[in-house]
């Protein structure tokens, strides 16, 4: 993965006319370094940055405590640590200034991910680098990240496939007569994820299994997210299973529906609504189409067929070094789809009982149109739990 990304980044920096880029977002830093540290986003009071001068090796500036962990995982082998004044950006700014002044020309242009850098840190940086031209580089990072390299696609294929397999893997254990509670099922999904070597341990991974009254909500039992309690799925109810997990810092998002025993007619009809929306999306997701066109096509189909889409949400996102990134299947995203982009299509609908039903399907945009990634089974029907053993 390293070579493809390094080549892309170097070309991007040159084409954009930067003398260097300086990024602070944990997702951007991971993308540029390969270090999937799992935890920087859980430390908003600690700063880490990647400084990448044109045609030179990048350096990671980070707290001393994190250095060895970074070096253990990154393809970047230059680091600069600083003595932290947590909550105060002055130390990291000093380290950056030292690097910038010794690496690039005075008055050089430095691209910064302004959509990630905290204002307080940026202001300090702006003062300390007054001879340099600081400009946003978010568009460059977006363009780099939105189209995946073949190696990135390989990892994404792995993580998405394993995600689906983990969901189905635990679904196999669920029986109508001997059903266990949400907590047990949630943990079962996690266990099946771990068994497939997903990074389902740590700060970011979450599974959720909801049924009955809890299936009406996005996040029941707040703030006990992804834990579940003793509610057991009953015959002819839905069980919604969700899993977010990573491999080497690359994300997957999965959601599947399980019907407790053969679905009744209403359940079949409701599930078919999701299938219909997916078919519309599959038709629309192709090179040259705008992300907003896909949204509009799905929205129009839902309106035409009387499908109650959950309001105010977008219908999908990209995944990669984060689990929520461009392109967005949103009315507001004018991105033209291109081969190599990945989209998790994730419509949510309400059934007559107000249950929130969803499938999440990952599509790769190809030259010909698209390809569904990682289906463990054919999801034109839900997973159907057996009655008993």
């Amino acid at each position, binding site marked *: 993965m390293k070579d493809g990304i390094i080549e892309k980044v170097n070309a991007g920096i040159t084409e954009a006319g930067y003398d260097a880029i300086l990024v602070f*977002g*944990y997702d951007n830093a991971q993308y540029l370094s390969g270090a*999937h*540290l*799992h*935890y920087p*986003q*859980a430390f*908003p*009071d600690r700063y880490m940055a990647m400084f990448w001068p044109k045609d030179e090796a990048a350096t990671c500036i980070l*707290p*001393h*405590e994190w250095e*060895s*962990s970074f070096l253990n*995982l990154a393809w970047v082998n230059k680091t600069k*640590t600083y*003595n932290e*004044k*947590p*909550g105060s950006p002055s*130390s990291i700014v000093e380290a950056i200034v030292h690097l910038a002044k010794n690496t690039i020309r005075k008055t050089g242009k430095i691209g910064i991910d*302004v*959509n*990630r*850098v*905290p*204002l*307080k*840190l*940026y202001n300090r940086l702006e003062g300390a680098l007054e001879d340099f031209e600081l400009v946003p580089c978010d568009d460059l990072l977006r363009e780099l990240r939105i189209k995946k390299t073949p190696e990135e696609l390989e990892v994404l294929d792995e993580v998405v496939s394993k995600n689906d397999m983990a969901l189905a893997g635990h679904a196999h254990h669920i029986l109508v007569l001997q059903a266990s509670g949400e907590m047990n099922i949630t*943990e079962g999904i*996690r*266990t099946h994820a*771990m068994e497939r070597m997903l990074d389902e*341990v*740590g*700060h*970011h991974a*979450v599974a959720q299994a909801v049924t009955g009254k809890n299936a009406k909500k*996005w*996040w029941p039992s*707040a*703030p*006990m*997210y*992804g*834990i579940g309690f003793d509610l057991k799925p009953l015959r002819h109810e839905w069980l919604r299973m969700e899993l977010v997990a990573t491999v080497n810092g690359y994300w997957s998002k999965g959601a599947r529906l399980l019907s407790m025993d053969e679905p009744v007619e209403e359940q079949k009809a409701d599930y078919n609504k999701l299938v219909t929306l997916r078919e519309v999306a599959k038709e629309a997701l192709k090179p040259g189409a705008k992300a907003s066109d896909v*949204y509009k096509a799905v929205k129009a189909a839902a309106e035409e067929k009387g499908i109650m889409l*959950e*309001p*105010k*949400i*977008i219908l999908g996102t990209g995944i990669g070094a*984060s689990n*929520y*990134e461009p392109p967005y299947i*949103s*009315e*507001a995203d004018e991105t033209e789809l291109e081969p190599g982009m990945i989209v998790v299509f994730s419509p949510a609908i309400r059934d007559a009982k107000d249950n929130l039903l969803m499938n999440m399907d990952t599509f790769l945009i190809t030259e010909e149109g698209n390809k569904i990634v990682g289906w463990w089974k054919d999801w034109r029907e839900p997973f159907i739990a057996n009655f008993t053993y």
Partner: protein
Amino acid sequence: MDHLKQKIETAVTESQVDAVLVVGVDNFNYMTRTVLPFAEHYPSRKAAALFPKQGSPVAIMPQEWSEAVKDQGWHGEVLVYDENQGYETGAFVKAMEELIVSMGLDKGKIGIDSARMTKGLMDSLSGKLPGVSWEPVDPMIRDLRIIKTAGEVELIERACKQNDRGMVYALMHLEGTVDLQRYTIQEFAERIRVHSNENGASGTSLLNCAFGSDGQIYYTPQKGWIKNGDIFRMDHSNHYMGYWANLGRMGVTGDPTPEQENAYRENLVLRDKALEMLKPGVSCNEVYAHVARAAEKQAIGFWKEPGIGHGVGASHHEAPYLNLNCSTELKPGMVIALDIYTYGPRKELIHNKDLYMITEEGHRKLSWYRAWDKLYHVFGFRTTH
């Protein structure tokens, strides 16, 4: 927790701004006393809370998170924005603009958490609302958060118990399996999380189990099998209703060697030195210096650069910081994670991280569930019961 609500309202009222706007996930959680679902993993998806001096506060967020905030008893209003109304943060900015105008604050002074608000978001907001004067209020938020109310301490103390019990229960499962059934490190870590949840925890963040040479570094993704003879470190952050415990414990598989036991004892020596200084009126860097002097005097090597601890509360790592650079004076109501890293026989990082509240008299240990005064030995054989 009503005292906290009052404390926040008083701070906003007495501030020099017309309203306070927080966008940092931890600040949102603190100020609204609710927890957003994994929002720190969505840097381009925004939630915020606006506290006007007069009128009801408003929480602004995507549809997916709104119900959870209401379910947690948020006392203010909820404004759900349509994520289709703008690209990335564009929809949020549009909703904020309408809200601020509707509240008559578009010519006012609004305090922001500038240590969390991104430069890009600030530019977007100020572009849409040119009449607003945006003032950093990070010191105010820091001062609010750094001293805990009794209700906050109670939640942290419960989180500590859940945290320690999570680790102890996982260790109990490990006993009798090291040579026979064998666990992966990943499974062991997961067991900590599960048992912490079973004990009532609301969520887990940092979870790290480092065995053998992996323990020489701060963190590495958990992989591989547990085997005999390794010293190991368990680092675990969990929260209870949005209030965090952040503990670290040490164990050894099989019988510890004298070198391993001695290394752990050395760590406790420095911990005890630090405890002498955990009291009101002492500055954080004085605590650090006291430990550094003791380490030098007794020839105990410790990892100086990370410091020896930090605050814990609505996040698992926050002010004050026990390091050379932090001159904050300890005060009653502060909660400190005391975290001194020393070294094992093979340069493994050793620590025993506990939480203490600063009291009028000195300190009180919040992570009291187990003493952890010697290395936890994982031993025994397996029987069926």
